[in-house]
């Protein structure tokens, strides 16, 4: 089944749905760059989901889902305290039946043929505005996520869920000095309003709105090198429970996007900065979940910083008068 064409993009923006939600666990920052600073980033993430988690959180071996995603992103601070960031993702997916037959593990989407399928996925935009710096950084956010095209939403190897989503929430963060110089902590809470979709069986509108909480703790080993650990947690307030009771035919094919997905993930990352460029590595695993999968991810991300950030190792200081 294909996602609905997103002609709503312009409309949503014009309607003032400020900012984008960074999709399921996306992560921005409580800190907003100085006016005139910005970045362009390119990242690649490989994800390997080896188990399905049913509505009770019980793991089920129903084949593996492999995916690679290329994410082009950028951000800019046009006025002090206001950060705008956005991005678009291209996704490759493949279902691996673990050598089992179609009779044992049947497809439930057109991409479940054990071949790679690539597609442009979602575009996202997020606006943050820092309202408080001390004793805690407080930065409200608003955003929008829009499918870029009618991509595949059904099956193990679906490209994505194909929903227009509008997250609103808050970042909070602070440095941990004087307790621990060079360390920081931040959290992002977002409530996402998700496009309405009906239960094909009952006709009832499903509430797929959800909350995401992302928490990060980091440490600057040096001004150029930082390490971090993070957790990503999601609760979906409605939707279908799957993997326990058989779904009726109308719901079966496209049930994934209707699922009441809940998960808990942990990850680690490191970033090396040359000033003009940042290079990051990241990895995560799924601790648990319901109506979800156990997924492992590894990724690399590079950003080019412009504006004041690019002169980190430059000689911008004025010499003393002689």
């Amino acid at each position, binding site marked *: *089944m294909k996602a609905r064409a997103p002609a709503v993009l312009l409309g949503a923006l014009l309607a003032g749905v400020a900012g984008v939600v960074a*999709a399921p*666990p*996306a992560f921005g*920052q409580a*800190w907003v760059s100085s006016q005139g600073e910005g970045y362009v980033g390119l*990242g690649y993430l490989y*994800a390997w*989901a080896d188990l*399905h988690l*049913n*509505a009770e959180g019980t793991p089920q071996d129903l084949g593996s889902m492999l*995916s690679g995603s290329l994410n082009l992103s950028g951000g800019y601070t046009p006025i002090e305290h206001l950060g705008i960031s956005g991005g678009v*993702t291209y*996704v490759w997916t493949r279902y691996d039946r673990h050598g089992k037959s179609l009779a044992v593990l049947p497809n*439930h989407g*057109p991409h479940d043929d054990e071949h790679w399928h690539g597609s442009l996925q979602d575009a*996202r935009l997020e606006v943050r505005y820092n309202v408080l*710096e001390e004793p805690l950084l407080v930065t409200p956010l608003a955003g929008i996520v829009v499918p870029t095209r009618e991509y595949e939403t059904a*099956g*193990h190897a*679906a490209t994505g869920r194909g929903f227009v989503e509008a997250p609103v929430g808050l970042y909070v963060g602070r440095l941990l000095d*004087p307790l621990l*110089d*060079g360390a*920081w902590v931040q959290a992002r809470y977002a409530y996402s309003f998700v496009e309405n979709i009906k239960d094909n069986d009952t006709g009832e509108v499903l509430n797929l709105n959800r909350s995401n909480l992302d928490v990060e703790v*980091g440490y*600057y080993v*040096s*001004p*150029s090198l*930082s390490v971090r650990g993070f957790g990503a947690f999601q609760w979906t307030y409605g939707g279908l429970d*799957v*993997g*326990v009771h*058989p*779904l*009726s035919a109308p719901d079966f*094919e496209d*049930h994934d996007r209707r*699922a009441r*997905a809940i998960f808990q993930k942990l990850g680690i990352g490191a*970033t090396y900065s040359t000033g003009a460029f*940042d290079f990051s590595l990241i990895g995560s695993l799924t601790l648990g979940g*319901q109506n*979800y*999968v156990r997924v492992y991810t590894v*990724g690399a*991300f590079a950003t080019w910083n412009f504006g*004041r950030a690019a*002169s*980190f*190792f430059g*000689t*911008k*200081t004025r*010499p*003393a*008068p*002689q």
Partner: protein
Amino acid sequence: MSQSRFLAACVCIGMLVSSSPAPACGDKFLLLGRSVRYEEAYAAKHPASVLVYSNPATGFSAAAGDVTAILAKAGHKPVAAEERPGLAAALKSGAFDVVFADVADVEAVDAALRAAGSKAVVLGVVYNLTGKELNAAEKKYSCILNAKGKDKHFLAVVNEVMRLRAKGQAPDCKKA
């Protein structure tokens, strides 16, 4: 209906006939985000006017350039000065909140500040000292930074100095 959708529908029907529960596949993607950049995290909430004094005869001169660049990046206003004539000229040219100097130069810098009527806080930097030299410096001064040790996050120290100054206070840098 396309062939692929027809096949998918057949499979779905087949699964229903066998009463297999639908598996959850979900959204597996994790978006990559930037890390918090050092200069963003330590962007000066109270920008300080900082004099970075480097004496070519002392160790800090090797790190003074990086320190100056990082201070500037964080939003402070650093001025670089070399040797005594440069120090005197810089102190005549404006007021400073903080002075970075090698710990071996702290007394001379203190004297120059007193002569210029400056109330700047002097942060002595130790760089490549032996353990014995470091112990001696720590016995003599409170406000010292170890450029290769736990005090490398000197922006946090500058922020703390400025926070105190905003309250009309100053760190006590002299030991009895």
